[in-house]
């Protein structure tokens, strides 16, 4: 019974009623998945064949879960965006192997693992949900974040040579543990603002600041600032939205933003001040310790301002991205341009545009906006019934959207570039699993956005006090 929702045997919808056509998002997802097969076929029959292996389960999952969610009033726009982004990611990753020859290869099995993880996560959240109302979950989440950084500081490895120690090797598999801090962050803020535990404003600021600084210190320790940026904006936006509007909060947020700007300015000053010493080899041990951070911040911002500053060094990746964008056109480059570093991960969006063109590139880009709008709408509607779920939804939405925006806008040199995977598009099993888990949770919660109301009641009524 694919896409069957209206109970047409009982009543026909009157003219005034709106007929639900949201099953079209399932159809458009299926069409896009098939379209990618056609596009890949034009680029090479072997690519199309590899894609077909993924297409069969993809079509099945889209149709079956689409039907399931459609009949349970889930947010089908959100479903459409998630499935379209997943299909885009799979098509890109298959193409990336042939065009860019990255170190790793596309694995359908990893998508299967991510899918299994999604189900475990949904069960985990269902079990954990009640616990989030207890204050100890705040400290558990906080401790979990700290533990991640401690583990990485001791056992962290750098398998790709990026200069960060965000991975650990478990049974032959590399796992990016910093991604787990995103789950911890979502649970932390949900617990902190849980409807059954009112904290004072001062208490919220103190506890959340502690969480914030643990993540900041941990990120600096393992030299992985990218994930921290996502948490940074998540921290600010959740406080801004869900905390009472008062002077203390305002001063706090302004202070954090001002301190950030000051830190960047300081990095520039320090860079200019330390550069002669670094070149002469006369930096002391403390200066040598902070030099990599100062240099990294200086380089990232300077290259955004002037992409030609270091064309064969720090600016190479962005310069190649810029070339790729110029060559992309509406339907992708036609000159086999493949000199794009880390195309399967950090540069996934540019690689996507380069191969599939701006038309599909913008479509995919706007799917992230769709996720944000759907997530925000869901968060707003859940606020009425379950504040905790509302914060979980908003936290997840912010993580997915901001991470996508940071990397996409960074790789297009709109903002300083942060080397992170793009949700759905980039390769990376750990992050992919978390993205799937978050997406699954969003869809599951979207089924409960309109709880059953007592007879005679109105769904827009406030719940009984």
């Amino acid at each position, binding site marked *: 019974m694919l896409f069957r929702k209206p109970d047409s045997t009982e009543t026909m919808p009157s003219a005034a009623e709106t007929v639900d056509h949201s099953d079209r998002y399932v159809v458009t997802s299926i069409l896009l998945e098939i379209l990618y097969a056609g596009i890949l076929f*034009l680029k090479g029959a072997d690519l199309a064949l590899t894609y077909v292996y993924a297409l069969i389960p993809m079509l099945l999952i889209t149709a079956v879960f689409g039907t399931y969610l459609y009949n349970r009033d889930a947010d089908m726009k959100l479903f459409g965006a998630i499935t379209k982004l997943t299909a885009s990611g799979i098509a890109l990753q298959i193409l990336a192997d042939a065009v860019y020859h990255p170190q790793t290869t596309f694995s359908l099995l990893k998508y299967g693992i991510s899918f299994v993880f999604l189900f475990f996560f949904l069960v985990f959240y269902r079990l954990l949900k009640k616990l989030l109302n207890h204050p100890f979950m705040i400290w558990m989440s906080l401790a979990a974040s700290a533990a991640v950084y401690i583990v990485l500081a001791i056992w962290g490895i750098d398998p790709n040579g990026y200069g960060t120690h965000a991975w650990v090797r478990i049974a032959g598999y590399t796992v990016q543990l910093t991604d787990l801090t995103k789950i911890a962050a979502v649970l932390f803020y949900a617990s902190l603002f849980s409807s059954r535990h009112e904290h004072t404003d001062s208490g919220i600021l103190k506890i959340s600041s502690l969480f914030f600084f643990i993540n900041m210190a941990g990120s600096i320790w393992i030299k992985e600032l990218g994930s921290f940026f996502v948490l940074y904006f998540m921290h600010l*936006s959740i406080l*801004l*939205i*869900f905390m*009472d*509007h008062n002077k203390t909060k305002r001063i706090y947020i302004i202070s954090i933003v001002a301190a950030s700007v000051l830190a960047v300015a300081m990095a520039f000053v320090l860079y200019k001040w330390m550069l002669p010493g670094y070149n002469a080899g006369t930096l002391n041990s403390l200066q040598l310790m902070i030099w990599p951070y100062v240099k990294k911040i200086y380089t990232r911002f300077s290259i955004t301002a002037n992409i030609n500053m270091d064309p064969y060094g720090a600016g190479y990746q962005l310069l190649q991205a*810029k*070339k790729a*964008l*110029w*060559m*992309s*056109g*509406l339907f992708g480059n*036609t*000159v*086999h*341009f493949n*000199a794009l570093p880390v195309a399967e991960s950090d540069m996934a969006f540019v690689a996507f545009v380069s191969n599939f063109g*701006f038309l599909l590139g*913008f479509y995919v*880009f*706007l799917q*992230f*906006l769709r996720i*944000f*709008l759907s997530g*925000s*709408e869901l*968060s*707003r509607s859940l*606020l*009425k019934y379950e*504040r905790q779920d*509302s914060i979980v939804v*908003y936290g997840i939405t912010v993580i997915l*959207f901001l991470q996508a*925006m940071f990397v*996409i*806008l960074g790789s*297009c040199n*709109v903002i300083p570039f942060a080397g992170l995977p793009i949700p759905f598009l980039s390769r990376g099993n750990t992050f992919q699993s978390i993205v799937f888990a978050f997406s699954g949770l969003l869809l599951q919660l979207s089924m409960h956005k309109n709880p059953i109301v007592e007879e005679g009641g109105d769904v827009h009524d*406030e719940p009984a*006090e």
Partner: protein
Amino acid sequence: MTNRRNKDSLAKSRIRIAELAAMTVCLLFTGGYGYKYIVSPLISPQARGTQNTITYDAVKDYAYEGDIVDKDGAVIMSSYDQYHTAYAYEPECYSFSYLLGYYTVANGRENTYGLRGSLADWLLFYLDDHNKGATVTLTVDKGLQDYAYTNLLAGQEGSITVIDNKTGAIRCLTSRSTISYNVNDLDSFLSSEVEGAQFRRGTYENDPPGSTFKILTAAAAIEKDEEENLPDDFFTFTDTGSYTPEGSSWTITNWNDAVFGTIDLDTAFRNSVNCYFADLGIRIGQDRLLKTAQAFRIGKDIEIPFLCTLHSKTHLGDEQPVTIAQTAFGQGNTEITPVHLALIAQAVANDGVMLQPYVVSSVNSGNMPLYRAFPHKLGRCISHTVDVRLKELMHHAAENYGLSEDYYGMVYAKSGTAECANDRVHTYIVGFTEDASFCVSMNNGHASADLYGITQELVAYINRIYGR
């Protein structure tokens, strides 16, 4: 509870603000980048130059320029072996040079000329599995083009155009200017300081049409006769060897000051009697002459896709008898290109319907078709009955040029000698066979009679390639 409700209400409004911010960022990004990378290269030559400079620099070490082949697939230009830029062997490197042109980029600027310039997106930037650009198939017959350049132009400044009667496909468009442009050597093209050396004779050269314009004057007169059922003596004229238009002191004479006595249209056309056509033009009237000229698209642009746009003009309009008289026998201020003259012949050959000329037949990357040309009508110039009478006139004229029906089959032609600025004489013969129309044009001639031999050789070659 009220406090809680207020908090939630505030949270909702802030989430909406976040939504607006997200939408703004996304729209600004898609709008800004869409404009920068998609729209601006389409509307701004500077942006397109930047785009193609970046692309050219990125691919120049591994991309091979696509092949350019003739209508039968014979290679005209190809990137052989280790050469990334296409190369043409002799004589194609000369005979096709003005047609093929070049494409270079430097300092963010594109320098383009000819087909290689306008087809760079396919020839250079649409690579197949072997990193070779798309193959461009021309409508041109390589053998005819080489023959026309080597044997017929034979070092003279001018052009030879051959157009298929039924399709408008250009079978030959070879030019030679004051320089020997070798398509493999850009310096041979750019180093000349002679004015106009870089113009492609045939498509850019606007000179008076000379007596070839008498085709149009005759067409206008026949049309007037059809419409107004003129008296029999309308086409009769007593030629005294000179003619002075009313209100003018300028005297028109015939070629070599010949005097023909009382003649009709056929005799006047065959002998290209200037005085007859000057008088006929005045009696036809400016409006009809102008209408006929415009029907043959004089004064209107004609595009040859991927190559250029043909421009032409006529100064009819001041109602002065001297202007009408001059125009009617092909002098005055009418300006037209040799390819346009060939198109006039093509229209007469094709029952009065002019077709759009085209030189690119198709573009393919491997098995993937990227472009295919189809015949396209520009419009009807004259009616069928006018066309039949014109053909009679032109056939008799052709026989006068030595294009005998017995040897060459049905050939129709009209010669022309135009006096241009700087005492230069531009000679033409335009005409058509059963299959193709042509224009033989020499920039520095003496008399159109000098072209009879070349035209006979050309017609013989055209007949051969069409299997006659």
